[in-house]
């Protein structure tokens, strides 16, 4: 299978590559539009800041390429947030696949620490990205911004309030958590994506 990982200025792209290797898949890490269009699956990972990353995507033309992809695309963490309409982080317009906003977590009590960092459970699973096996299982999150529950939500997690742990629309899939860092549960989700 031909899997491409979108290369851009965000950090920790290689941990997705390593996770795929553990599943026996060798991916191409690239920003080449032809290679991205030809891939059977595309992964859009990312750790970073939305404003500067969107600027980078615009400068490289990836802002037009990514929404035009027809094969299954998986956005991870910042990758998921950038597939939404707009982010409060850097107050920036994003790629507009998912018709929803990205908001900043606001603590309601002193104990609400931000970023939401660590292992939390996923519920209300509604996509072929998941099987019943993953219901209420723990996955790894690190984020200060979140996507509210909306029409595209296919998994929810509760932190301060329920938010979107995963989104899906047409060929676009996305997780707020890091499947590549979520042990065997994460590996199962990545392998579900590869089977789409």
């Amino acid at each position, binding site marked *: 299978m031909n899997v491409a990982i979108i290369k851009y200025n965000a950090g*920790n792209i290689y941990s997705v590559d390593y996770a795929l290797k553990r599943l026996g898949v060798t991916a191409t890490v690239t920003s080449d539009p032809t290679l991205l269009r030809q891939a059977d699956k595309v992964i859009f990972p990312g750790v970073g800041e939305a404003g500067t990353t969107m600027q980078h995507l615009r400068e490289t033309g990836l802002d037009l390429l990514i929404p035009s992809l027809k094969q299954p695309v998986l956005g991870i963490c910042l990758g998921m947030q950038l597939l939404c309409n707009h982010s409060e982080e850097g107050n920036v317009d994003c790629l507009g696949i998912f018709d929803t906003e990205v908001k900043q977590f606001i603590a309601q009590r002193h104990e609400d620490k931000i970023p939401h960092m660590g292992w939390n459970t996923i519920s209300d699973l509604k996509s072929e990205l998941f099987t019943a096996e993953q219901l209420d299982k723990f996955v790894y999150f690190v984020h200060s911004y979140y996507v509210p529950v909306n029409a595209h939500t296919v998994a929810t997690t509760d932190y301060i309030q329920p938010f979107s742990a995963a989104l899906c629309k047409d060929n676009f899939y996305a997780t707020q958590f890091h499947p590549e860092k979520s042990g065997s549960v994460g590996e199962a989700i990545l392998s579900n994506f590869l089977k789409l």
Partner: protein
Amino acid sequence: MLAKRIIPCLDIKDGKTVKGVNFVNFRDAGDPIELGTQYSELGADELVYLDITASHEGRKTFTEVVKRVAANISIPFTVGGGINELKDVDRLLNAGADKVSINSSALRNPKLIEEIAQNFGTQVCVVAIDANLENGAWNCYLNGGRVPTERTLFEWAKEAQERGAGEILFTSMTHDGVKTGYANDALASLADLLHIPIIASGGAGAKEHFKDTFTLGKADAALAASVFHFGEINISELKQYLFEQQINIRL
């Protein structure tokens, strides 16, 4: 609900795992990747790898260890030791680390915290603090607990948070290696003072100590080394115990 985290810490010298008792007298405890994989399979939530080699050669060896960890282990890990400038952070993140932990270099140059936060995000920057209780004051130390400073735990932790630390890893030198429990009074005061996660370190000797640091100490995560390395506490049994004690834990 967000789970409390159990974090084994592996001290690495010349590519191998070691652990000090009260920061001296090292004993060998095995291969870092094998040990990390084992911990991950037993249910460790994160790993910390500390490079305790000071030499340039040692640093290259450590970077290779970091690459092997990233390739083989599917849970997050933090690396620390010998991080003095942004390019060290860049090298370790590129090798596949998820977070970096800075200690002496942050005390010497607090601006490093801001630089890491601005360039890589606050979630990447763990500020480790070694402090010892002396006449009622928690005094901070440099160089693995060998060099005293003018700084004290609470004001330094607060400053670190303000500068952009994503987490505080507080090691009580008073409790480290003694195995009578974590510094829960100081940890609870830290939790009341800060709004970022706190990792308790130093003093674990029994399963109850982990429960106490999550309840009395209000810690978000608990780090330990020798009790895990020498098999005194099995991580899987520890997590089962904590679950039965109604601590929110990932099983």
